[in-house]
C-alpha cells in the first residue's frame, strides 16, 4: 500500500455539479454582480474622476496637487481630525463609565438608562445640531453657559458628535464589559488585590479589544458625518461638508472626488484596524467564562446612579429641546405651542410628501435589502466550491463599512449619471435611493446574517441532499424560520438607518423623491429651523414606533417559537 510504484498520475476525478450547486452558483454570481454594480464600479468611477480634468481627460495627480496647494481646502483635514479625535476622546470617556455602570454595578433602572442612551440612534444626525441652536444659539435658552464662545463651529460640532456617537460606543463597550469572567475577580480577591490594581490588571485587559473597536467606530462615524457640521458648523469646514460644497455649491465634481478620496483614507484605515481587533475579540468570547455578578456598594452605586441620571437627562434634554422647539409658534417671541411648524407643505424642502417618500424608501430598503443581503450571505456561506469568487464577495461585503455616505453618494452620481451607462434611467428615481441605502448599510447587515448562519448546523444542507430535498426548500423551511430574529434585526436596522440617513442620498434625490431627513436639512438651510426640528421629530417618532413594533414582534415570535428555541 505504501509503495508509490506508479509513475503515471491517475486522472483527477471531475466532480459533477448537482442542480443545487448550479442554482447556488447562479445566485452567487448574481450577488457578486450586484455588489460590483452598486459598489465597486461607482467607487471606481469616483477614483477615476479624481484624476480627470473637467473635460474628462486624464491629468494624473493634478487635481490632488491643486487640492493640497489650496489652504482653504486642505485645512479641512486638520479640522476633521481635530473634531474626530476630540469627539472620540469625550465620547469614549463618557460611554466607558456609562457602560461600566450598566454592566458592572447594581444600580436600579438600568433598563431605562440604557434605553435613554440608545435614543440618539433613532434620530438623524442633524437633530442634535438643531437642538443646540435652540439651547446655545444666539437666542438659546442656555446661551450664557458658553460665555463668549459660539456654538456655531467646533464646539457645536463636537457636542453634536458626542450625542450622535454615544450609543454606538456604548453598545460595543457594554458587550466588552459583559464578557467579564467572575473567576478572575475571585482570584484577584483571594490574592488580596486592591480595587484599583484589579481594575488595571483584570478589568482593563478584558475590555481592551472592545475599547479599541469602539474608538475606531466612533472616529469613523465622526470623521464621515455630514449632518452635524452642516447644521451647526458655521464657517468651520470639515471634509464631509467640503464634498457637499464642492459638488452642490460649486459644481466642481472633480474636486469633490479628490476630497472624497482624502476622506476615504482615514475611514479605510480605521475600518481595517477595527476588523483586525474584532477578530481578536471573537476569540475571547468563545472561552466559556463564569458571568460576573456585581455586588452592591452604596457609595459607588450612588455616584454611578447620579452619573447615569445626568447623562440620560442630557440626552433626553437634547431631543426634548428639539421636540419642544418644534411646537413653539415663533421662537423666542411667541412661546405659545402650536402645530404650525408641522405644516410642512407650505415650506420649502418637499413637504409631507418627502416624509411619505422616506417611509416608502425605508420600507423598500428594509424588504429588498434584507432579502438580498440575507440570501447573499446564505449562498456565500453554504455553497460548495467557487472559493475564489466567494472570497471576493466576502471582501466586497466589507467595503461599505469603510466608505463614507457622502463618498458613496458622489460615486453614484459619477457612475449612474454617466451618459453611457445603460442603468442611467434609475438616476433621480426612488430605486437609486433604495439601492444606495442598501449598499451603504450592507456590511453590518451582512455580518449579522453571517453570525446567524454560522450558528446553524453545517450539515443541514448535507442531510437535505441525502434526502433528495432541494436546498431552497430547506432554506425556506428551516434556515429562514430559525434565523428569523436576525432577519428582523436586519430589516429594522435598515429601516431606521434609511429613515435617518442624509449623507448618501443628499446627492441623489430629485424633486419627486425628496426625503424627510433631506427636507429637514434644506429647511434648516433656508432658515426654517423650527420646521426642520419638527421634521426630525417626525423621523424620531417613526423610528421609535417601528422599533416598538419590532420589539413586540420579536416578543411574540419568541413566545411562539419557545417550544423549539432553547438557546
Amino acid at each position: 500500500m505504501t509503495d508509490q510504484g506508479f509513475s503515471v498520475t491517475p486522472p483527477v476525478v471531475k466532480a459533477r455539479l448537482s442542480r443545487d450547486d448550479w442554482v447556488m452558483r447562479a445566485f452567487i454570481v448574481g450577488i457578486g454582480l450586484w455588489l460590483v454594480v452598486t459598489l465597486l464600479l461607482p467607487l471606481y468611477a469616483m477614483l477615476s474622476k479624481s484624476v480627470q480634468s473637467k473635460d474628462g481627460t486624464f491629468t494624473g495627480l493634478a487635481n490632488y496637487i491643486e487640492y493640497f496647494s489650496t489652504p482653504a481646502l486642505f485645512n479641512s483635514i486638520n479640522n476633521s481630525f481635530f473634531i474626530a479625535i476630540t469627539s472620540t476622546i469625550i465620547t469614549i470617556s463618557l460611554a466607558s463609565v456609562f457602560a461600566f455602570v450598566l454592566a458592572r454595578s447594581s444600580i436600579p433602572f438600568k433598563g431605562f438608562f440604557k434605553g435613554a442612551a440608545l435614543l440618539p440612534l433613532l434620530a438623524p444626525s442633524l437633530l442634535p445640531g438643531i437642538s443646540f441652536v435652540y439651547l446655545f444659539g444666539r437666542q438659546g435658552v442656555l446661551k450664557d453657559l458658553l460665555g463668549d464662545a459660539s456654538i456655531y463651529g467646533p464646539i457645536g460640532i463636537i457636542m453634536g458628535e458626542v450625542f450622535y456617537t454615544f450609543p454606538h460606543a456604548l453598545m460595543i463597550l457594554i458587550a466588552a464589559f459583559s464578557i467579564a469572567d467572575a473567576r478572575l475577580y475571585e482570584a484577584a480577591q483571594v490574592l488580596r488585590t486592591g480595587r484599583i490594581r484589579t481594575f488595571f490588571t483584570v478589568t482593563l485587559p478584558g475590555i481592551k479589544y472592545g475599547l479599541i473597536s469602539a474608538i475606531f467606530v466612533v472616529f469613523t462615524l465622526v470623521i464621515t458625518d455630514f449632518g452635524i457640521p452642516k447644521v451647526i458648523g458655521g464657517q468651520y469646514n470639515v471634509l464631509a461638508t467640503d464634498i457637499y460644497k464642492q459638488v452642490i455649491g460649486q459644481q466642481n465634481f472633480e474636486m469633490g472626488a479628490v476630497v472624497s478620496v482624502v476622506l476615504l483614507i482615514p475611514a479605510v484605515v480605521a475600518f481595517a484596524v477595527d476588523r483586525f481587533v474584532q477578530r481578536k475579540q471573537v476569540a475571547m468570547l468563545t472561552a466559556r467564562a463564569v458571568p460576573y455578578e456585581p455586588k452592591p456598594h452604596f457609595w459607588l452605586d450612588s455616584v454611578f446612579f447620579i452619573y447615569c441620571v445626568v447623562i440620560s437627562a442630557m440626552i433626553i434634554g437634547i431631543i426634548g429641546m428639539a421636540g419642544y422647539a418644534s411646537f413653539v409658534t415663533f421662537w423666542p417671541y411667541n412661546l405659545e405651542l402650536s402645530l404650525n411648524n408641522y405644516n410642512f407643505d407650505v415650506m420649502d424642502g418637499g413637504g409631507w410628501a418627502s416624509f411619505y417618500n422616506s417611509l416608502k424608501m425605508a420600507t423598500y430598503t428594509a424588504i429588498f435589502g434584507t432579502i438580498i443581503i440575507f440570501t447573499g450571505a446564505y449562498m456565500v456561506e453554504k455553497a460548495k466550491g467557487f472559493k475564489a469568487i466567494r472570497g471576493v464577495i466576502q471582501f466586497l461585503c466589507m467595503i461599505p463599512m469603510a466608505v463614507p455616505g457622502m463618498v458613496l453618494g458622489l460615486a453614484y452620481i459619477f457612475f449612474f449619471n454617466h451618459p453611457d451607462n445603460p442603468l442611467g434611467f434609475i438616476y433621480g428615481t426612488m430605486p437609486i435611493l433604495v439601492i444606495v441605502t442598501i449598499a451603504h448599510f450592507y456590511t453590518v447587515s451582512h455580518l449579522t446574517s453571517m453570525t446567524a448562519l454560522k450558528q446553524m448546523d453545517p450539515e443541514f444542507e448535507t442531510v437535505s441532499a441525502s434526502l433528495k430535498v432541494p436546498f431552497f426548500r430547506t432554506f425556506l423551511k428551516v434556515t429562514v424560520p430559525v434565523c428569523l430574529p436576525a432577519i428582523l434585526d436586519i430589516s429594522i436596522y435598515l429601516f431606521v438607518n434609511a429613515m435617518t440617513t442624509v449623507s448618501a442620498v443628499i446627492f441623489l434625490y430629485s424633486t419627486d423623491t425628496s426625503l424627510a431627513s433631506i427636507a429637514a436639512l434644506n429647511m434648516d438651510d433656508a432658515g426654517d429651523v423650527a420646521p426642520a426640528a419638527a421634521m426630525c421629530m417626525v423621523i424620531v417618532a417613526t423610528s421609535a414606533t417601528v422599533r416598538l413594533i419590532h420589539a413586540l414582534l420579536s416578543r411574540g415570535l419568541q413566545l411562539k417559537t419557545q417550544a423549539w428555541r432553547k438557546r
Partner: protein
Amino acid sequence: MSKDVADQKREAYLRVRNVTKKFGSFTALRDISLDVYEGEFVCFLGPSGCGKTTLLRAIAGLDIQTHGSVFQGGRDISGLPASERDFGIVFQSYALFPNLTVNENVGYGLVNIRSSKAEIAAKVAELLELVGLPEQGDKYPSQLSGGQQQRVALARALAMSPGLLLLDEPLSALDAKVRVHLRHEMKELQRRLGVTTVMVTHDQEEALTMADRIVVMKDGVIEQVGTPEEIYRNPASAFVAEFVGTMNFLNASKANDEQILLGENLLNLDEAERQKLNGSPILACVRPEDIQVRNIDDATENAFMTTVKDLEFLGSFCRATLCYGDEGSNINADFSINLVRDRNIIPGAKIRVAIPANSLHIFPADTAK
C-alpha cells in the same frame, strides 16, 4: 493492499478503488481501496486526522476524492453530487431541524416522493416505532434527550430506505451510559434491516462491539482490515496493536529463527510470527489479560519468573506491574480479583508467569507507536 476477506465470490456492494484525497499540498487519503459487502456493518477506526471522516465524505459525495473511483451497487458514483447518490447519513451533531417536529423531521424527505399525507404519516410512525420512539412525534428536537435526538436522526436517515447508511461518529456526543445502550440498539436495528452500513468512530470499543469488520486507519492509509476478533488477536502493525485494546510493548531481540530473547528469557514464537524475524531490534507484544499464572509447570512454554512491583486496583480486576529483569523491564498483567486473593499476589511477591506463543506478536522496533 492489505489482506482482504476471502469472500471473493460475492460482488462487493460498495467498492472504493485507489482513492486519494488532497487538500492543497496535504494528502488526507493515500490510494485507498476497500470493499464493503451487502448488509455488512463496517467501522472506520482511527485517531483524529487519520482520514476516516474524509473517506466517509468521499463515499457520500460531500468532499469528492482527488483521484480514484467509488462504485455503489455496480454504479460508478465517483463524481456524483451527494443528492444523486443513495445514502442516509447521521452526524455526531444530530443535525435535526430545530424548528420542525420529530414527525416533520423524519418525514422531511418523504414529502418529495410520496403524495398522500396518510402514507407519510404511516411511514413516519413505523420508523419512530422502529427506533423505539413511538408517540414522540409531536415534540421538537430540543424537548428530547441527546440519545432520543440521535434516534430521530437515525429514523430520518432510514426514511428513504437508502442502500447505504453512513454514520459519522453518531455516539460521540452522548453520555457514556446512553452510548453503550444505543450502540447495542443501533447494531440490532442494522442487523434486522440488513442495511449496508459504514460508521466512522475513534472509539475502539464502539468499533469492536458494533462492526462486522473494522478498517483501522492512520495518516490517510489503511493499516488493517478485519473482523473485530482478527484486529484484536492479530494486529497487523504496532500501531493497530497499540490503538485497539491495551498492549505491552517489550524490547526484545532475535535469539534464533524460532525464538526471541526477552531479558534473559527465551520465548518461542508461533509459525506466523517467525516469518517476521530479521536481525533488527524487536518489539514483543502481549496483551495484559493473556499473561498466564495458573497451571504453570516446568513443561509450560514461555514461562519465567517475575517480581510483583505494583498492584493497581481497577474494580473488576487488578493490573499488576511485573518485573522480569533489570530496572525498567516491566510487563503489565491483568489478574482477576480471585486470582490475586488465591495466589496472594502482593507487591514484592515472586510469581512465575507464562506468555502463550499464540498471544505473542512481534514488530520491528522502529515502527513503535
